[in-house]
């Protein structure tokens, strides 16, 4: 009787571990994807605001200048990332773990 109980217990524990592992993994993965999307979105936002800095004229550049004091901290990293973008496709693949 006790043996059956143990087996059932072990089975349940195994299932719950698989369950937790699966969902936690999935959660970690989705957080990572959203995080990457958010940071990318931020980069594109910067691009719309300060394309002038990269030599692309923008009709709204006069008005985006007033955003500069609040975004200047991100400017350096952004410029480096923009200069570094070699392959947009591989970046997207990386996001979903296709290496």
């Amino acid at each position, binding site marked *: 009787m006790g043996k059956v109980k143990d087996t059932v217990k072990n089975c349940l524990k195994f299932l719950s571990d698989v369950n937790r592992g699966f969902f936690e993994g999935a959660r970690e993965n989705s957080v990572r994807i*959203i*995080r990457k999307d*958010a940071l990318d979105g931020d980069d594109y936002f910067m691009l719309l605001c300060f394309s*002038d800095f990269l030599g692309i004229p923008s009709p709204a550049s006069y008005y985006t200048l007033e955003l500069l004091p609040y975004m200047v901290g991100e400017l*350096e990293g952004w410029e480096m990332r923009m200069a570094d973008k070699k392959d947009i496709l591989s970046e997207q693949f990386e996001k979903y773990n296709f290496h």
Partner: protein
Amino acid sequence: MEGDSIMPGLMDKEIIFFGGKGGVGKTTCSSAYSLSLARKGYKTLVLSTDPAHSLGQIFQVKLGDSPQRLDDNLYGIEIDPETESRRYINRIKEQMQSGFSANIAAEIQRQLDAAYHSPGAEEAAIFDRFIEIIDLVGTEYQRVVFDTAPTGHTLRLLSLPELMGRWLQSMIERRENVNEMMKMVSVVDKSLEERVKDDPVLKLLSDRKQQFEKARGFLVDNRRAGFVFVLNAQQLPILETEKAVGFLERNGIPVEGIIINRILPEKSDSEFFRKRKEVEDVYMKEIEQKFGGRILYRIPLMEYDISGYESIDRVAKIFG
């Protein structure tokens, strides 16, 4: 010879823009009209948005960025885009904290200095001042008269709120979208929490959008604002005015009517002027045809330059 004034209500409008092709007499008409308003007891501000100002010259007073008294109840401003943008850029510089790398600091300096000459900067600067002045209507001043730059420049200026409004809207949506994602991630990554909370960038964008909406609201409100075109009985001013009226109406900006300036006298001893008058008659007919019911005033060609108080006054009397 007095012009026939019609159209009740023009002087009830709080803001009137005078527009038209370069050299048709916008400044003459807007100064005389302002003087006429001031005489009626309205506290009036007349201001020039033309970077090549002539308002001060006509009043023979040096005008600048802050209101200068021209007469009882009458004040004048010449908007200087460069002063405006310097004020704007200096404000940005003050808000800028220090502490970033020398590389970035130099680049920011370069960008800010280049901003004076960036495309659209002049209009944006003039427009910012325009928004400030709108706030004074009904409180500081009862009437505001704009002596605008030649047509193309002014139409670009007036289409700014719509253009920028659309652009701002898409920026705001983008920012909100990113902030939303960051909020989700901030559950695990606390470093992003700061960024999402009271995002100043979003606030600035929304404030700008509100300003543009307010300006736009004013421009299209035919109870408060209107546009008057000045033209001469000549081919090019007629064509340009026709185009501009169409543009404004398509954009919902009310056009009050037109003023025909520098009409030649009926009688002349000189053969030359009789011939000129015949040519003018053809164009006068064309104006009647095209703008008929919208002709507000007819102003004769004067035997002297419109410069100085006396001569403005004579034109002002035509406005009643």
